[in-house]
């Protein structure tokens, strides 16, 4: 019996295929994996931020019943291929290359630095074993601040570097910086700090590694954003041929940039599995996740802004210092993206940008949802303040400076064309939704009762994937591949290197393929998470909507042509006279001619189309992003600040966003709301805290505070009509935007609420105590 397929799945909030298993506890996360003979690993970790390791005595630990093996850092070095950080090498990072061992040997460089691995019959016993390992440390002066790291007197974390400069100072200029500042009516100077905070997915990192000596094959189950990338690194560091490694991933409990590559712990556990001939599982606990997995955003900026008295923002000169923590990760690359994105959607004519990155005794600076987010924070903050200093409304200042959508498009001073941006429209729409004059009345009335309401906004654009540059590749990550196949049961199978960890790809990609191919949604299956069958891919950078959505669309089209070619032989009509609807192929105008796709596939597989026919109903498609495009939008928030306690309530939060064509509105809105929640967390609750001696202070959820259902309001979202740039693929990414623009939106609103106190805010973390400090400081300054 045929089922009526929806006219168009794409654009509808189709219910997720992931949910039946998620809602019933049938998801398969890495900690759910249980293999015969499996052992459990735990790590001995440094309690000190910076120290030499003088000795490691594992004898007592080895004797504990239930402990099967203990390997020191030195032993793990013998069992693996030493080298610089694999991910940095693969991503082509240049600059100073720190030398370090997989587990710490000569020294430890952060609290929690792993020194030895204990493998036991249970995680309980492994932790017991860890307590019996005796490590002798010799304290070294901690490099606990970026300022000290800049000081040549600070002890280098990495001996081979000779100092703590992770990324040497560079300066670039775009346009005529000196001339622009000369011409300016006013020059403003700001210093802005963004605090350290972190990804904190609900599931930490983890893996189960299993080595089969007979075949020489290593199988690793892991939580990752790319199985192929994990595989490359596992092979590299374990000295295995690529085809001797298989990486598998099932359901993943969030990541937000954290789970990329293979961590030092996973590699050590894999080496142990190979040595022991038994599977070894390592599951990061929350303490490990908060302390060592990685942190982000600790940056400070000195900004000079050249402005006319009418409010034209002519140019910026920015100096950035980034604290990249101890071991290399993403931090060294962040300044380049910040430089590129700083102009945003504005008509900036000159930009000077210089940066330095330092190493400190803190967790590594990893990618965290919108790693370059500080460019929006800094830019939107100074626009607010400049507006107030010039006596202009922040909204009007933005409208004045936003680039118009022209043809040919305006270019960002750093090079990228602002093609198809809808910033002006989003600002106007937000203004209409918020009714500023009414709010100002309510605000004034509330002040007479000692209540402080505020309204704030910020706008952004995101290269998701970014526009095609004339003559250049489209987005930041090149080509996206996908294998598509029509199975004999009539299922269209998509093999993608994407590794969804909440993004709902198994639903959204099926929507696109189902529409393009002409099958019911249920007749598409999306296969992820097995390096034996999926092409290369990485989920991240807000790229999948365009890149993977695009390759699904084009690939489905290619596969359909191939299938119709067969069908045309079978049905003895020209392929142009055939259509596919509802999983059946039929001659236009003749419904009785319908043949199910499964029959076509079966007959192709049976060789019915002769020896010359390519009976493989499979295509390997690739897509370069087409015309690409920007995503972006404007957020606006109304907050109330209790000036006696410093507590902030977010009363209303509005989003007007443009991510091009929507594949699944519910999925898009979920991504936006999740990002905004992280922004609320960053501003009001979350800080990865180190004291002045480098001791880590937020290793539990009692101190690293996450936003809850009482902290995040209903978030109203409007989608803008997109400006289509491509003939087919106008889906754009939306995963990171919420987290990028929510922090400046909230800080803007808080500053507005505190206007009566004359407060100006040049930082991102505003816990209650800080708000009272800002009020008191402004009070005494007046």
């Amino acid at each position, binding site marked *: 019996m045929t089922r009526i397929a929806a006219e168009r799945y794409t654009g509808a909030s189709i219910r*997720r295929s992931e949910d039946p298993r998620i809602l019933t506890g049938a998801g398969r996360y890495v900690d759910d994996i*249980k293999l015969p003979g499996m052992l459990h690993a735990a790590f001995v970790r440094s309690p000190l931020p910076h120290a030499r390791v003088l000795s490691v005595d594992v004898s007592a630990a080895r004797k504990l019943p239930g402990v099967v093996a203990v390997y020191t850092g030195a032993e793990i070095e013998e069992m693996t291929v030493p080298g610089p950080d694999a991910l940095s090498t693969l991503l082509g990072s240049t600059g100073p290359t720190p030398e370090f061992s997989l587990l710490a040997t000569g020294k430890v460089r952060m609290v929690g630095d792993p020194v030895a691995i204990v493998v036991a019959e249970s995680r309980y016993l492994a932790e017991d074993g860890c307590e019996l390992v005796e490590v002798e440390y010799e304290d070294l002066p901690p490099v606990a601040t970026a300022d000290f790291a800049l000081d040549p007197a600070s002890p280098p974390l990495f001996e081979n570097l000779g100092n703590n400069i992770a990324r040497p100072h560079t300066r670039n200029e775009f346009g005529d910086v000196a001339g622009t500042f000369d011409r300016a009516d006013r020059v403003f100077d700001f210093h802005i700090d963004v605090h350290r905070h972190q990804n904190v997915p609900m599931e930490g990192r983890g893996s189960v590694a299993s080595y089969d000596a007979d075949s020489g094959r290593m199988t690793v189950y892991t939580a990752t954003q790319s199985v192929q990338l994990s595989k490359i690194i596992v092979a590299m560091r374990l000295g295995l041929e690529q085809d001797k490694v298989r990486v598998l991933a099932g359901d993943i409990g969030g990541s937000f940039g954290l789970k990329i590559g293979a961590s030092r712990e996973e590699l050590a556990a894999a080496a142990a599995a190979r040595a022991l001939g038994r599977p070894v599982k390592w599951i990061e606990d929350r303490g490990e996740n908060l302390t060592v997995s990685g942190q982000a955003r600790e940056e400070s900026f000195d900004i000079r802004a050249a402005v006319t008295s009418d409010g034209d923002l002519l140019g910026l000169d920015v100096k950035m210092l980034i604290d990249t923590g101890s071991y290399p990760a993403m931090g060294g690359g962040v300044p380049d993206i910040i430089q590129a994105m700083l102009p945003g959607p504005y008509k900036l004519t000159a930009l000077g940008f210089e940066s330095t990155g330092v190493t400190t005794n803190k967790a590594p600076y990893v990618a965290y949802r919108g790693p370059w987010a500080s460019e929006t924070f800094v830019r939107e903050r100074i626009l607010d303040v400049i507006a107030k200093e010039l006596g202009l409304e922040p909204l009007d200042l933005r409208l004045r400076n936003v680039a118009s959508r022209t043809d040919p498009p305006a270019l960002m001073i750093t090079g990228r064309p602002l093609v198809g941006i809808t910033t002006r429209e989003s600002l106007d729409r937000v203004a209409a939704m918020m009714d500023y004059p009414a709010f100002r009345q309510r605000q004034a009335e509330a002040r007479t009762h000692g209540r402080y309401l505020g309204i704030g906004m910020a706008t952004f654009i995101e290269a998701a994937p970014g526009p095609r540059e004339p003559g250049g590749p489209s987005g930041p990550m090149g080509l996206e591949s996908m294998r598509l196949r029509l199975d004999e049961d009539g299922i269209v199978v998509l093999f993608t290197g994407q590794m969804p960890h909440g993004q709902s790809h198994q639903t959204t990609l099926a929507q696109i393929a189902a529409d393009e191919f002409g099958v019911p949604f249920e007749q598409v299956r999306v296969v992820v998470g097995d390096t034996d069958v999926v092409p290369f891919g990485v989920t991240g950078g807000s790229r999948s909507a365009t890149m993977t959505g695009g390759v699904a669309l084009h690939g489905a089209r290619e596969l359909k042509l191939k299938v119709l070619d067969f069908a045309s032989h079978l049905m003895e009509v020209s392929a142009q006279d055939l259509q596919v609807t509802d999983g059946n192929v039929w001659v236009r105008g003749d419904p009785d001619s319908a043949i199910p796709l499964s029959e076509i596939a079966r007959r192709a597989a049976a060789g019915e189309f002769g020896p010359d026919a390519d009976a493989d109903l499979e295509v390997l498609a690739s897509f370069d992003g087409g015309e690409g495009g920007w995503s972006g939008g404007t957020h606006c928030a109304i907050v109330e600040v209790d000036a006696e306690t410093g507590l902030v309530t977010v009363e209303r939060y509005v989003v007007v966003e443009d991510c091009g064509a929507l594949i699944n509105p519910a999925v898009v809105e979920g991504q936006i709301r999740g990002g905004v929640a992280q922004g609320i967390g960053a501003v009001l609750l979350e800080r990865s805290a180190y004291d002045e001696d480098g001791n880590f202070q937020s290793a539990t*959820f009692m101190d690293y505070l996450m936003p809850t259902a009482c902290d995040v309001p209903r978030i109203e979202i409007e989608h803008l009509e997109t400006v289509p740039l491509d003939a087919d693929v106008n889906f754009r990414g939306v995963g990171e935007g919420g987290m990028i623009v929510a922090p400046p939106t909230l800080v803007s609103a808080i500053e507005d609420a505190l206007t009566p106190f004359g407060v100006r805010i040049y930082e991102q973390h505003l816990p209650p105590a800080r708000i009272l400090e800002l009020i008191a400081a402004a009070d005494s300054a007046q």
Partner: protein
Amino acid sequence: MVDITLRVNGETRTGSTEARKTLADFLRDDLELTGTHVGCEHGVCGACTVIVDDRPVRSCLMLAVQAAGSEVATIEGLATDGGLNPLQQAMWDSHSFQCGFCTPGFVMQATAFLRKHPDADEQQLREALSGNICRCTGYQSIIDGVLLAAERNRER
């Protein structure tokens, strides 16, 4: 080692466990009910929430031996006939979740709460769920799912 007998999802289950093993780990390892997730092991995130003797409980803050003789309900026991129960269905319809790791805790907490407060308003519901942390959704879709389930219950 302590021998324990308890009822889990309506079935009598027995086990022999170290006293120090948490109920969360016992459910996951010994009974192979991996639907209950472990998110923090210090009682803050709520991912491990199950229902013990009609009360929502953080299973990481209970020893398995303390559940001897009790009735424990986990997420695996909610739906019968391999389908979804009304709360799960409403959450599916509302796109409540993304990565799914926090989901079992939310579903069990919401189940326990709705039984006692079937007509709770949004604010009460948010407070009741504020002990469960989700990193993906910003909570609105979860709240919508629970409110939808409550509304459908009333219509029945």
